[in-house]
């Protein structure tokens, strides 16, 4: 097979479709969705966080040799390896659609009924279509409707196809987002609008990550998901939930640990990386918990500020000194505006910061999962070797007995196991290679994601502070006017 080193240049088949998603639950005009004018927030139609902004070589990190014609890849990719194609940037907009049907519990839709905020419009726009020589899509602009369970279904398919060969398949959102996030909701109950928005955002990020993965984008299931008007109904959402998959992965990991595979790690890189991800896992979980606490407290602050504002207004009404009364009313107005600010900041805290962390906690679980699969693969290879050895010994024994049939069978079995050993070794090498490449890609993405989010988050904080200055500067003359 042709092996080619991967230089950071143009000649390779790249993944050209940056699908930028906007996933919105189908709704006419989500008036109840929170603050429309947040520039820093990912609410509303335009998603600002595009995880894959620029046209860079996604393989730049991989210094390993990558085989273009490796047999493993063929069944996965729908099209064969393609010549270099100029990048195309399709955009996907997913808008919310709140049908009346969404909240109806029709008896035959029981499965879906539990998912409020279930149907989403997934709008995909492929720009620069003439540059596309690789026709992954039939049309340039199209919208499809997708259910929450469809996303889960997609993930389960991808997981079953790719996890065991070392691809980091992005985890799907949890079914019960409510349970997942410990956000204590303030004055508005977990209204359907807020719940739908959380889900919408989570799905969008999930889809974005999936599609940014070069191999996954070309997967026929993904393409079908993006394009087909009608998707076959996902079989059983229970087994397919993001949590379900993760449980599977975790169980695999636990099983591996219990097997106490003493792997002769010839490659220090893997040991190092594994430890790294262990540590990162612990820290990210801690950070996530702290940020969730921040969101909670910020929401509380917003509620308490609003409550104080009302109280100050009442006090102002009661005050009989005219100028002071006016000043107190002004104070009440300022505090009301500040309450809004706190609420907006809480959303930024959540959608920019907390959700990113939550995503990465789940992603790292997936990463740990592929490392565990590698161990399993190694173990399988070792087992095959042990088996081969046994068969050889058995054959040797049969040489001296006079049983030509059994001898023949033994020889055949040896051939069989020799092939399995070879396959085991190849599998192990392949998964190791894949993981190296995947981890490289993952780390690069992680760096980018966090860099972008940190800056965006800081900008949201700046916005809040600047608004505060504005409000208090407007109030100051009122206070001074008290005579």
């Amino acid at each position, binding site marked *: 097979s042709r092996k080619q080193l991967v230089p950071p240049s143009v000649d390779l088949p790249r993944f050209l479709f940056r699908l930028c998603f906007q996933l919105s639950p189908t709704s006419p005009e989500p008036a109840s969705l929170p603050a429309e004018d947040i520039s820093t927030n990912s609410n509303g139609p335009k998603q600002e966080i595009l995880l894959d902004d620029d046209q860079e070589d996604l393989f730049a990190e991989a210094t390993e040799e990558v085989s273009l014609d490796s047999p493993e890849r063929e069944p996965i990719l729908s099209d064969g390896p393609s010549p270099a194609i100029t990048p195309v940037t399709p955009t996907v907009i997913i808008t919310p659609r709140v049908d009346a049907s969404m909240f109806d519990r029709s008896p035959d839709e029981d499965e879906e009924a539990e998912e409020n905020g279930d149907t989403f419009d997934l709008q995909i726009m492929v720009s620069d279509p003439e540059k596309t020589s690789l026709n992954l899509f039939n049309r340039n602009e199209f919208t499809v409707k997708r259910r929450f369970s469809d996303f889960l279904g997609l993930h389960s398919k991808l997981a079953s196809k790719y996890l065991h060969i070392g691809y980091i398949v992005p985890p799907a959102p949890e079914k019960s987002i409510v349970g997942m996030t410990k956000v204590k909701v303030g004055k508005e109950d977990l209204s359907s609008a807020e719940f739908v928005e959380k889900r919408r955002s989570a799905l969008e990020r999930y889809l974005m990550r999936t599609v940014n993965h070069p191999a996954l984008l070309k997967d026929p299931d993904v393409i079908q998901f993006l394009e087909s008007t009608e998707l076959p109904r996902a079989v059983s959402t229970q087994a397919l939930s993001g949590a379900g998959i993760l449980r599977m992965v975790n169980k695999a990991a636990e099983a591996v640990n219990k097997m106490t595979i003493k792997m002769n790690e010839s490659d220090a890189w893997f040991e190092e990386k594994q430890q790294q991800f262990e540590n990162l896992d612990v820290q990210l979980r801690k950070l996530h918990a702290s940020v969730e606490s921040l969101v909670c407290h910020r929401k509380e602050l917003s509620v308490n500020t609003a409550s104080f504002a009302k109280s100050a207004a009442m*006090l102002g009404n009661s005050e009989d000194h005219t100028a002071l009364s006016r*000043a107190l009313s002004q104070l009440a107005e300022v505090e009301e505006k500040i309450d809004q600010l706190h609420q907006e900041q809480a959303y930024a805290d959540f959608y920019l910061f907390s959700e990113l962390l939550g995503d990465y906690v789940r992603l790292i679980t997936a990463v740990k999962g592929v490392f565990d699969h590698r161990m399993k693969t190694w173990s399988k290879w070792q087992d095959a070797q042990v088996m081969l050895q046994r068969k050889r010994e058995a054959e040797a024994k049969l040489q001296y007995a006079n049983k030509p049939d059994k001898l023949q069978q033994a020889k055949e079995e040896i051939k069989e196991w020799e092939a399995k050993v070879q396959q085991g070794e190849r599998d192990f090498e392949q998964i190791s290679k894949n993981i190296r490449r995947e981890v490289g890609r993952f780390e690069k993405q992680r760096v980018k994601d966090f860099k972008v989010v940190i800056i965006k988050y800081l900008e949201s904080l700046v916005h809040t502070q600047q608004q505060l200055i504005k409000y208090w500067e407007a109030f100051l003359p009122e*206070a001074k006017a008290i005579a």
Partner: protein
Amino acid sequence: MFSSALLLLPPRSSFLQQRKIKGKVAAKIKTERRESPRSLTHRPTRSSAAMTSISQDADREKMRSVSVDLNNDSSLLIDIPDALCERDKVKFTVHTKTTLNSFQKPEFSVPRQHEDFIWLHDTLVETEEYAGLIIPPAPPKPDFEGPREKMHKLGEGESTMTKEEYAKMKQELEAEYLAVFKKTVQVHEIFLQRLSSHPVFSKDRNFQIFLEYDQDLSVRRKNAKEFFGGFFKNMVKSADEVLISGIKDVDEFFEQEKTFLLDYFSKIKDATAKAEKMTRSHKNVADDYIHISATVSNIGAEDNTALKTHLEKFSELLEKLRKVEGRVASDQELKLTELLRYYMRDIQAAKDLLYRRARALADYENSNKALDKARLKSKDIPQAEENQRQCLQKFDKLSESGKQELTSFKGRRVVAFRKNLIEMAELEIKHAKNSTALLQGCIEMLKVN
């Protein structure tokens, strides 16, 4: 000079040593015109004042120190330069400087406990002569419960955090202790200064004893308790009903005042509670920043990608921001919550004045009835007439001084609100500008990277 205090920690927290607190709270008093209306003083307190940088703080404190309009009569200057916190008891050092002959020495200090202040307040309340005056509200008991609970929780959660995180939380909590401590000193001081700057109260005999008596006041206190008991307290409760359900006052001024004060009291009480909740939430947010900063720093330390610098800078910034947020919270508490709380108590004192006047009115009406009865029976008429005359006199005196007091009270209140609202707005702006500068600086640095 202001030097920061070390805090004694409550016996419950085993992980902290018991130390004596010596709080030297600055009393930088500027003498001002006597005419200036008495305003609520807020000594600048900085809940995040570092324990060690003394002189720097002192200078900054001076700049920010609010002029004390109360202590403006050089014939009698009072302050609390020192306080000691032992277990739950706070011992205040009351320092007096006077030119008056009624005192034995021109300058002296005595140690006093919170209970002594209460005794003084209660004796003033019980003094008939002062019925027509607004008695300055008694200072509330020093309450360290809030930070103490937090300290306890911190101790329990010690294992879940890193050393640095824990140290920072502890530092923040110690600052909170300090803030409570400073607040209580301030509020006790203001009480005394209200008395010393009042033409009538400053001459009160018990006040003088309080300032001067170099022995323990606890003996006197006990006697006083036996004598007065819960007498006045009970009266207050029933007086409330009298006032509320009472007949409409003939005097327009008092009728209006009654309506206003009753309504205003409930509103300001509510506002105080809500302001307190708001401030507490703010502190919680600031505390969260500590944890986030610490964890981000840990992640950064172990990171060896291009993300390392970002994480380090982010963590540093959060640490700086949380200090600002803490200041926002504590300034808000001082300028807003404390203001509201103080005037809530002051309004209660004004209401008490109305109660006493109502009682005097009732007495007068009773005396009228008694006189009529006496006239009917033709018995003891001169006594009844004398009684009636005295009641009327008392009532008139009360009404006259009451009117004065209530009018000047309004003026005082308006001035205090104005001052504190202006200061609060200015501080909010200052902190927000500071935060913005920090944030923008960090963003610039990160974008360059």
